[in-house]
């Protein structure tokens, strides 16, 4: 049942993606309305799929790569909906929703089998740690989209090419303010994610920090975002530099998320579990 719901979700997200792309190309308002409607529906199905999977497996479905990709996409769509509700950003959907769609597609290629949970992971900390970390990832993915939009728009204005792209993107300062907002939400979440992970590690293995590759790279990611956060607050970094830094941070984050899990072996490695 949850697999079926998942497939429906992917399909609805696909329709919504097409809607947002049609909107940004033709600027038709009805396309955006329809796309938003589908996005809401998809989010509903996605939530249902998540709950059904939890119910079917008996543990929070946040264990393998399929789960975490799917949950990240869910968190992205959720925060996007929330963002649009509080401060609507023109054309953001055409960047975020296709991205979420790609993550969902990647997720759907992963094994969807529910394996019995290794005893060491059976803990209340699993959902707490995983949800916080994946939410941080989702927020940073949003920040990444906004940074891309900023750089695109900045380039148009700097080079004085005020054509189709210029018309479709929001103003620079709005984009920068949103980037900042994402950072002020995402960075504390990331910090909290690392702290909860550390507490859980102590409970499970008796040591707060054991320098496994995931932990190391998480720390590197944390430092990149910490640097950006610091520069923004103290020196007043903004605009292009902040946007580029956001993108660098996200690249490191992706490596931490995917690269480490697939390349190295360790407590977080999906590779070992799948074997």
């Amino acid at each position, binding site marked *: 049942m949850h697999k079926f719901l998942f497939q429906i979700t992917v399909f609805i997200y696909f329709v919504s993606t097409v809607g947002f792309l049609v909107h940004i190309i033709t600027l038709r308002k009805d396309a955006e309305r329809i796309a938003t409607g589908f996005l809401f529906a998809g989010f509903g199905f996605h939530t249902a799929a998540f709950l059904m999977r939890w119910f079917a497996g008996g543990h929070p479905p946040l264990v393998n790569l399929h789960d975490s990709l799917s949950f990240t996409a869910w968190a992205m769509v959720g925060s996007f909906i929330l963002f649009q509700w509080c401060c609507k950003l023109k054309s953001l959907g055409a960047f975020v929703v296709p991205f979420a769609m790609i993550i969902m597609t990647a997720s759907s290629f992963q094994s969807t089998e529910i394996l019995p949970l290794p005893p060491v992971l059976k803990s209340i900390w699993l959902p707490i740690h995983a949800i916080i970390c994946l939410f941080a990832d989702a927020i940073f993915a949003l920040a990444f989209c906004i940074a891309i939009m900023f750089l695109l*728009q900045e380039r148009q*204005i*700097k080079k*004085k090419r*005020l*054509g189709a792209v*210029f018309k479709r993107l*929001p*103003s*620079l*300062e*709005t984009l*920068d303010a949103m980037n900042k907002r994402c950072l002020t939400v995402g960075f504390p979440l990331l910090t909290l994610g690392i702290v909860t992970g550390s507490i859980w590690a102590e409970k499970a293995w008796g040591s707060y920090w054991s320098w496994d590759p995931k932990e190391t790279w998480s720390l590197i990611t944390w430092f990149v975002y910490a640097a950006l956060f610091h520069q923004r607050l103290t*020196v*007043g*970094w*903004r*605009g*292009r*530099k902040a946007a580029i830094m956001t993108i660098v941070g996200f690249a490191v984050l992706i490596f931490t998320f995917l690269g480490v899990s697939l390349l190295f072996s360790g407590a977080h490695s999906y590779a070992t579990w799948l074997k």
Partner: protein
Amino acid sequence: MPLGLNRPQIVLLGVNHNTAPLEVRERLSLCESDTPAPKLFAGLSSCTEVVFLSTCNRVEVLVSTNCMDEVKESIKELWVDRGKMDFKTLQDSLYEYEGMFAVRHLFRVASSLDSMVVGEPQILGQLKDAYRVASEANTAGMVLNRLLHKAFSVAKKIRTETRIASHAVSISYAAVELAKKIFGDLSGKNGMLIGAGEMAELAAQHLMASGAGKLVVANRTLSRAVKLAGSLGGSAISLEEVENALIDADIVISSTGAPGIVLNKDRVKRIMRPRRHRLLFFIDIAVPRDIDPKVNDIDNVYLYDIDDLKGVIEFNKAEREKEAFKADRMVEAEVIKFMAWLESLNVVPVIQHLQKKAEAVRQREISRSQKVLESLNDEQQKALDILTRSIVQKILHDPIVCIKKGAQEKNNKMILDATCRLFGIDGLEETPKLQDKDLPDDSQDKTIS
């Protein structure tokens, strides 16, 4: 008069900025005449209805008439006579539109497709004024009322459904548009004006009108700065204080008469740190330029000079032209609908005569049986009246529906001829005056407007 030819026809005569020089336009506007121009035209015997439009770019007379050629001649005569000009000059600069061409021209004028700057918003207001004058003087009747209202709704529709008016086409507007694309909301953003000049003042004015916060005016002579700051609602500083003031400014409009660079890259770079790298937008409309073009290379600083802004405007004008195609298509659709309505007007007299004749027959037959019917009491008489009335109505219902349906078709003459012959209607010489309630309804129109 043969049936069907008595429907009103629409004629439009006029000149605009393309066909006539200002001097001719001034003469034709008849502003020197003691009677106002609309009254003069309304006085012409062949004019049924008149609206007179006179703006700085065009003078046009729109009439509804029953004899087209006569009205054209008499309007031209009036212009030659009152405007004190020779016939040839008039004829050379005048355009004449009839029927659907007149309707199309009016719709295009109202939608600002015929304007010097396509999409400029004033013309619609001017046309509305012209119409108000006409309806106050009672010179606009049923046909022009409807035509003008249609023109207004077409214009409004084009304005909302195309982007014909959404691109700035003047330097000062373009500058403010750009500022909005950089800062989003201008409220709380501070402006700065370096030097003075008409265009710079205009841009500063637009900026303040768009919600910008404080304004600082810097000038070589402080007294001039104080005066300008007073009129724009800002504060004045001397040129030496510019660098310090730049720390608080967000949008800087520069137009000094200085022969060389006033602000170089290093000076701007220096202030970025104390500004905490807040975005800074320079608009340099001075010739020669005041601000070093290299300033644009600094992060978070954007510099547009007069040529850049002109580039923006050229681009926007091209965008408007593109939108104008779309607008023309919409005009065309509305012209066709209006002409169909106008076409349908000639069925009204036929229907009226048909009803009149039937009623006459009914009355006559009732009075012929007067003797027998006298014995009936009041209630019975009333019932009889209702009965005969409804028989007449029921019999006429289908033919009338049929005529009304045929009314909107191009060649409705056949059905009208047939009706007249079948029911023996003739002698339509004395046409009853058309009234709004008699008109065939065009429900498709109502859903659109």
